[in-house]
Each structure stands twice: as C-alpha cells, then as structure tokens.
C-alpha cells in the first residue's frame, strides 16, 4: 500500500518542484547578475499573485491580460528596486545589500497586509479543474498547467540565453562584469534589468502558486525558503542547478513527509541547505569557487 503511492508522490513532487524551480531560477537570475541574494524575493512572488488578482478581479481584465500586466508591473518594481534602492549602496558591505532586499520584502508584505491582511483570497482558475487518472496516479489540470507553463518558460529562457546575441551578452556579463564594462556594456543598467527580470519571473511563480493555494500576504515567506533551498541544492548561481534543485526539493519534501513524518515537510527547506552546505557547499551543479589571494 505504501509503496503503491510512490508514483503519486513522485508526480506531485515534480509538480511542486516545478514551482520551486521557477522561484529558484528567478532568484538565481538576480544572484548571477549582482551576487546579491534577494531575501525579499518571496514577497515579490506574493506581490505578483496579488497584482493578477487586482488586474483581473479589480479592473476586470481577462486572465492573460491581467497576468501580462502583473508581470510588467513586477518587472518595473524589480527594476526600480535595484535602480533606486540597491544601486546607491552597491559599493557598501554585502550585508547592507541583503538587509535592503529584506527591508523591501517586508515593506511589500506590510503593504499587502494593509489592504488584504484580514482576508484569505481564492483567485479562480482560468481553466476547468479536471482530474485525470493514470492507473492509481492522479494528475490535475493544475499539475499539467504548472508543469507545462514552467517547462515552456525554461525552454524560452534556454533559447534566449544560448541562441540569441542578447543571451550571449547576458552570459558574458554574468561571467565578467569588469570585462563587460570594458566592452561598453552598461553594467548598472544590466543589474537593474536583471532585477526586473527576476521579479517578473517571480511574479509568474506567484500566479501559478495562487492557482493552487489561498492567497495571503504571507505567501512569500514559505516561498522564499523553498526558493533558497532549491538554489542551494542546485548550486548557487547555476541556472540549470536551480531548476534541478527545485524539482529534487519538491520530491524530497513529499517522500520525507509521507514515509518519515509530515513534520519534515516544513523543515525540508531548512534541512536541505544545512546538509548541502556541509557536504557539498557548491551544490549539485555549482562550481567550487577558488579565490586566489
């Protein structure tokens, strides 16, 4: 009986993991570009979900239009955060940057609580919720939509980064910002664009998340932990690692929760970084950093 549920747990783990992967990827984009871990990223994810709710239910836009607007708004928010809050202190200690990111996140959360703190919202899906049975494995439209959308997005990102001149510029700047500056690339603008891109990707994650879970201003809190754990597991700064880390985390959570104890579900996101940092600090796909002094 217990083993017969393994395929179901794997499928559900992959579905949750895809979401974690998207969030970890959006955090990694910012980290690769600026070497800053955005501790406010979870709240940007939540803000993305609320933005779709506002544009959709508040202004009456169709779902896809509302989603496009939300992504645009979050892109601008991420861009502005870097430009006006991070850039002025970029020469300061790394801790200041991390604290600024954290403060921005808490400000977003506070603003969301101010408006929606007393309610739990349940945005409706723009598609029917159907269930498909494959043997004894249940797959819902949510699983299909989330996995399909994230896979499409990953494919698009891969094509952008690997196949286009813009992607080459981004990769080159990831590699060496000093080199990029020397060949005339506006690195501060690049940083701001990557913050915008990271926030926009996070907004997509928030929208996907709001399909399967009630919307509360604290949605980002849990999200940040999972994104951070997936990033650590995959290897800091590795885009492919973030995706693999997210999926592995999703599966680990389900297996530990079911076969060991459900209390492990909450702490998996904390256990994983501890184990990875102790046993393989570079993560599964990251490279060992060698600093010459």
């Amino acid at each position, binding site marked *: *009986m*217990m083993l017969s*549920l393994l395929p*179901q*747990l794997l499928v*559900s*783990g992959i579905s*949750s993991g895809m979401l974690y992967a998207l969030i970890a990827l959006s955090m990694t984009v910012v980290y690769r570009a600026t070497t800053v871990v955005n501790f406010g990223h979870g709240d940007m994810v939540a803000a993305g979900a609320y933005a779709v709710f506002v544009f959709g239910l508040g202004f009456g836009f169709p779902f896809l239009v509302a989603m496009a607007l939300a992504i645009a708004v979050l892109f601008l928010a991420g861009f502005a955060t870097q430009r006006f809050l991070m850039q002025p202190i970029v020469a300061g200690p790394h801790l200041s940057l991390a604290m600024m990111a954290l403060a921005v996140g808490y400000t977003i959360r*506070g603003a969301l*609580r101010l408006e929606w*703190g*007393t*309610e*739990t919202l*349940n945005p*409706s899906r723009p598609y029917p*919720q159907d*269930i498909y049975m494959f043997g004894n494995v*249940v797959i*819902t439209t949510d699983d299909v939509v989330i996995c399909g959308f994230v896979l499409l997005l990953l494919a698009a990102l891969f094509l952008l980064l690997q196949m286009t001149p813009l992607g080459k510029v981004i990769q080159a700047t990831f590699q060496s910002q000093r080199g990029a500056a020397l060949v005339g690339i506006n690195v501060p603008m690049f940083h701001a664009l990557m913050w915008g891109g990271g926030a926009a990707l996070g907004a997509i994650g928030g929208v996907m*998340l709001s399909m*399967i*879970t*009630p919307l*509360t*201003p*604290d*949605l980002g*809190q*849990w*999200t940040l932990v999972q994104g951070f754990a997936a990033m650590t597991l995959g290897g800091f700064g590795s885009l492919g690692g973030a995706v693999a880390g997210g999926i592995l985390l999703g599966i680990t*959570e*389900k297996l530990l*929760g*079911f076969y060991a*104890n*459900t*209390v492990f*579900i*909450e702490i998996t996101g904390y256990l994983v970084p501890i184990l990875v940092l102790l046993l393989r600090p570079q993560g599964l796909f990251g490279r060992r950093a060698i600093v010459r002094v």
Partner: protein
Amino acid sequence: MRITQAIIAVVAMAGLATAARADSTQGITASTIMIGNMGPFSGPQSTFTPLNYGPEAYFRYINEQGGVNGHKFVTVFADDSCNEAKGIAAAKKLIYEDKVFMIMANPCSGVAMAIKPMLVQEGVPWIGASANPKISRPASPGIFHSTYTGIESGRAMASFAMGKPGTTKIALAMHSDDWAHGYCDNATDYIKGHNGEIVATTALEHGATDGTAQALQIKASGAQAVMACLYQPELIVLLRELQKYQVDVIVLGALGADFDQVIQAFPNHDYLKQRFFQPYQFKAKIGTGPLKKFHDIFVKYLTKDELPKVGEPTNFYYFGVPAAIVTVEAFRRAGPNPTRESWEKAMESLKDFDTGVLADSETFGPDKHVGVEKMYAVGLSAQGQETVYKAWGDALPDTE
C-alpha cells in the same frame, strides 16, 4: 540617612503598587467606561480582527441607546500582531497608560496566556475569544470566556464526526502550536473515551501550500473522519488535496476558519456536501432569524474599513459579539457605580443568560468562568444548502 531614604522609597513604592492594584474603578468615570480591545490588527493573523470589531459594533450600538447606567463605552484598540512580546507590551500600555477597566476580544491564545499573569496580578478583567481553555480553567479572578474554548469545540468536532454511524477511525491534521492542540487534544480525549481510534496524526504547518503527503497518509490510514485543527488557508489546502485524491472522509474544521470563506474557495461544492463540517456557535444561520439584528448592527455601526471588503459580515463578527453582550449585562447588574469586584460578581451571577447569538445560554459561577458548552455543527446538505445540525443527520429546524 541613605538607609532611611531607601526604606521610605521602598515603602512609598509598595504603597503606590498597592494603591494601583486596589484601584478597582480604573477606567470608569462618571460618564464613560474605558475598554481595551486587543487583537492582531497587523500581521499574518489579522484575519481574526472581525472578532475585535464584533464587540465594538455592539458597544457603539449600546452607546447610541444611551449607554449603561449613564456610562458610555470608550474603546482603546491595541495591536498585538498575535505575538506574545508585542501582546505584553500592548497590554502594559492599555493597563498602565490608557488605564482601561478591562481587556477584551484578544483572539490569539498565545498572547492571552502570556498576559494572563499580568492581568491577574493587576486585577484587570478579561473576556476574550481565544480558544485555549487554560486561560479560564481553572477559574481565575476576573478572567472569563463568554465563547467556546478548545474543549467545547474539540468535543463538538469529535462527537459530531462519531455521530455518523460506524465512524471510529479518526485522523488528525493539525498545526504544531498550542492553538491546534487546544482543539485536537480535546477531540482526541473524546474519541478515545468513546471507543474511537486515532489512525493517523499529520502536521500541516502555517504557510504550507501543499498537503499531498498529508492527504495520502490520511487515505492510507483508512480514516473515516479527519479532525482538521488548522487555520483557514491550510484547511483549504488540505480539503483541496483530499478532493484531488478522492479521499472518502468527513472533515471537521476547527474555529480558526470561516465556514463561508472556506466554501467560497471551492467553485464546485460537490466534494464538500455532507463531507466538510465545522462546530457551529450560533443559534441560527448567519444573518438570519435572531442573528439578523446583529447583522444590522454590524452594517450600521462599523466603518467601511472594519467591515469585509466583499460580502456580508462573516462568522467571526458574530463570534466576537457575545463578549460585549455579557460585559454590558454585567455592568447593568453592577449598578451605576461599578467596580471590578462588582462587575465580576455580576458576571458570576449570570445564569441561563441568552445572548441572542450563541447556540447555548451563558451560565457562570465562582468556579465556572466559561459560560457556554453546547454547540451545533454547520455543513452543506446533500442538496448543497448550508445547514446547521444538532447532531449527525439532525438538522436544526429552519436552517436547511
């Protein structure tokens, strides 16, 4: 000389402290009674603030009738964010700066437990909506529960589930905090005491966005019913997963969730019909029959910001109001010159007092500071109608 000064200072401070403790009319003037209304006006638990606004609406209503014995109620709100440290600071401010007569509402059990020693020491009355039964059991001077604690609610959850013929295997799905244990521990006691069996205990923590492992564990355990001691977002997550995996159980939610809002989270209610229930505190359906009066009070006396942004006042508004109703009645009985002692005596004199809201009437005594016991259950009938049940299959007349 220094020793003499020190002795004088100590004696003076002790005198002041005694005087402060002894001032049993703090917060009362010739025309006003100052009430501290404490709750999570900010933070993740601010979904509970209707429990603060319910009593406030009633006080405004009473004030418009001229008050009680010439006194009108003046409320000082204090935000505890459902955080113990903030709660202690908020209570200190209410007691020592604002000098309130009493503190009420206070939906968060952790905060209520944290401030209880201060309340008892200072002799400040408390009447709240938090679920932890240890707040008012055993009876402490001035501390009252006019609403149901985890004991009544936990028993109601278990007894309703086990009222379904043949139901003996029960699973628990709960947060790991005091609040959830307040419900689930008492439900467990009832289940074990009535030849039932706990076949699975699963944790679903605050903020969880997925309940796959929990739903599958419940399914694998063969449970016939689930005691879901969860807040609203996580209860919705669990119900969605149980629906997804077609787990054939009845689910009893605790009072941390609003029934109507949970139902609204499911565009298709079919899975919830005769499956999802909650203990029900009221004598009629929300906003109907005797509760219509209170609906009108909420709508008239609360501001736009205090009312729900969408829809009608929900369960928590009504659940908060009995604290104000019994408080007002006790002041009425305490006469034109109330003190904390006379108010407490008046509270303890309430017997079979009908609040007009709750399923049970209020009965207090010197050793009994929880006023109500009997609860109903609410769920969707087979036809999908919100229905109040006295017991499994026994609908309250006029509520189908």
